[in-house]
């Protein structure tokens, strides 16, 4: 990619450095349960201090992959390297990873304090040290005054923080988080996402998170692996995943997108720009500025995000490409954004999102209006997979 894609969370990209040694390496991992293949010959590198997300629908194998790293499942084939060492056959209680469970798995018969101390006590640390570390951890998650409570005397958010403190207490090399925020309500979830990122930076640990919530993955991660049916579809930064998905699956899975199937008509520089691709999407002429493997006659998909589609009642100057005309069929008002569903003459629906930048609009677009949808050359992309 010549142009940089979107904002970067921080300057951190060991994956782009060919000399960097991966911290965790899944090497040709296959996991079968009977005849079902949960993970299919998968190879993945994760770097030290990375906040890495495994994202996918349920049953895509993301949890199985994490459980193999924790030691609860053994790979059927392949091996897992942690700091270059093969950890196959090492039982979970001897692995330098700790996991935060989806259900939190707090020990109900122990106080908050005892829960956090549990892992430290297994290492036979002196009592004073255990107490000091527990105090430090509870302070970290702001639960000092709840030390003597039992888990069932805490709210959901507090339980989540106890689980986090417990899994961090042993200072694991890798912290595994299985749907860590799934049980929290939206507001609390957003707050906690930022707390997690903050913690990860502060402690300098490697975090591996499993989630089906794409917003969560986008917010917290350095890189995301989008999974489907035991395979990795794409591994990239959140911005790349969003702006440059490599396949129809990833494009459709992440965010909202218009996908138009079509055929490549030319890949010349007819528009005066290098690498331009022209596609005929059943009557809609599309022109894209993109370096692309596709050649004339290829069946491809054109994808464009709704927020990159402009909507206007006025006919644009140039309607030879990247412009469609249709009727406003439905409007989704989201507060910050309005999503317009525009029905074309042939029945296809194209979505356009518009930020509601001012409270009052002179001539608002409403149901039944005939509108033009346009997008610039670099707004969409050609998907060959």
């Amino acid at each position, binding site marked *: 990619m010549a142009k940089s894609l979107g904002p970067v969370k921080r300057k951190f990209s060991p994956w782009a450095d060919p000399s960097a040694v991966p911290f965790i390496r899944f090497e040709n991992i296959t996991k079968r349960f009977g005849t079902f293949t949960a993970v299919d010959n998968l190879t993945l590198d994760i770097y030290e201090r990375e906040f890495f997300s495994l994202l996918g629908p349920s049953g895509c194998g993301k949890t199985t992959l994490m459980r193999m790293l924790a030691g609860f499942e053994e790979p059927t084939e392949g091996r897992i390297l942690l700091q270059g060492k093969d950890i196959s056959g090492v039982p979970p209680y001897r692995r330098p990873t700790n996991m935060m469970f989806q*259900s939190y798995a707090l020990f109900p018969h122990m106080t908050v304090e005892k829960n956090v101390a549990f892992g430290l006590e297994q290492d036979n640390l002196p009592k004073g040290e255990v107490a000091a570390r527990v105090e430090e951890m509870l302070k970290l998650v702001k639960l000092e005054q709840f030390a003597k409570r039992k888990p069932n005397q*805490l709210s959901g958010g507090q339980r989540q923080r106890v689980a986090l403190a417990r899994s961090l207490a042993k200072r694991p090399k890798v912290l595994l988080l299985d749907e860590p925020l799934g049980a929290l309500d939206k507001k609390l979830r957003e707050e906690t996402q930022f707390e997690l990122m903050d913690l990860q930076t502060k402690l300098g640990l490697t975090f591996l998170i499993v989630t089906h919530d794409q917003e969560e993955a986008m917010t917290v991660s350095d890189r995301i692996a989008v999974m489907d049916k035991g395979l990795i579809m794409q591994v990239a930064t959140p911005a790349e995943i969003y702006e440059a998905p490599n396949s129809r699956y990833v494009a459709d899975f992440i965010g909202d997108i218009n996908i138009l199937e079509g055929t490549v008509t030319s890949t010349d520089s007819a528009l005066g720009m290098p690498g331009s691709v022209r596609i005929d999407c059943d009557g809609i002429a599309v022109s894209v500025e993109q370096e692309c493997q596709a050649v004339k006659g290829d069946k491809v998909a054109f994808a464009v995000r709704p927020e990159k589609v402009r909507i206007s009642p006025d006919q644009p100057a140039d309607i030879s490409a990247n412009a469609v005309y249709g009727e406003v069929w439905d409007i989704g008002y989201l507060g910050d954004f309005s999503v317009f569903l525009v029905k074309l003459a042939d029945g296809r629906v194209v979505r356009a999102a518009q930020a509601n930048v001012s409270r009052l609009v002179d001539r608002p677009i409403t149901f039944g209006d005939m509108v033009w949808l346009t997008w610039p050359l670099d707004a969409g992309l050609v998907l060959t997979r």
Partner: protein
Amino acid sequence: MKSSRFDATVLTLGFAFLYIPIIILVVYSFNASKLVTVWGGFSLQWYRTMWSNQGLMDAAWVTARVGVISATIGTVLGTLAALALVRFTRFHGRMLFSGMIYAPLVMPEVITGLSLLLLFVAVGIDRGFWTVVIAHTTFTMCYVAIVVQSRLLTFDLSLEEAALDLGCPPVKTFFKITLPLIFPAVIAGWMLAFTLSLDDLVIASFTTGPGATTLPIKIYSQVRLGVTPEINAICTILIGLVTIGVIIASISTKQTEMRRIRDEHVAARGTT
């Protein structure tokens, strides 16, 4: 209104059917007369003579020891069986093993007793105290296995995984996490096993030998010679013990429930 009167009648008849025999037994244990069917005024004399009836007291002591020992062994074995059945879902012969755990529950006691008797004779063990203990262990462990199994089915496995993940080896995890959490079910299993051992007549009479007469055997053999008020007295004590047990159990269940509700209120407030 008609239907509610019908309900009341059915309820009364049902309870009467269940409890009148027991009430008669209890009432006649306080009878001053030696005749079981004639009321001769209130007296506690049978409770006094009961204590001095050495045969009855010996039998009670045997029963208590058999009950405690067999219930304890049965609880350990039954808990292990339940763990195996719940945890190892895919081992060879699981269905068979599972069925074999349930079989003794529906097996006629006469057959269980007889087969154990044949076993002891074949192996050449002298029948007595320990043969009764073994016999009771074999049939009570099945009940324990079922009680514990039903608790384990709702046990959140991620709790054990969390312990393993935090560096606790499997055996230690069992004693520090699993056992404390399933302990109420284990205790309930023990109580059930003890009660079953306490009131078993058939299996005990097949497997017992000289010097190991349990209370039910003693009572049964005495009754054949005629019901004495002493028997009524010891039965009343047994009923009393069981009743106290049930009351304690239900009170503690109630308290656990109330504590849970209170905890949830505290949690809902979310503050100190």
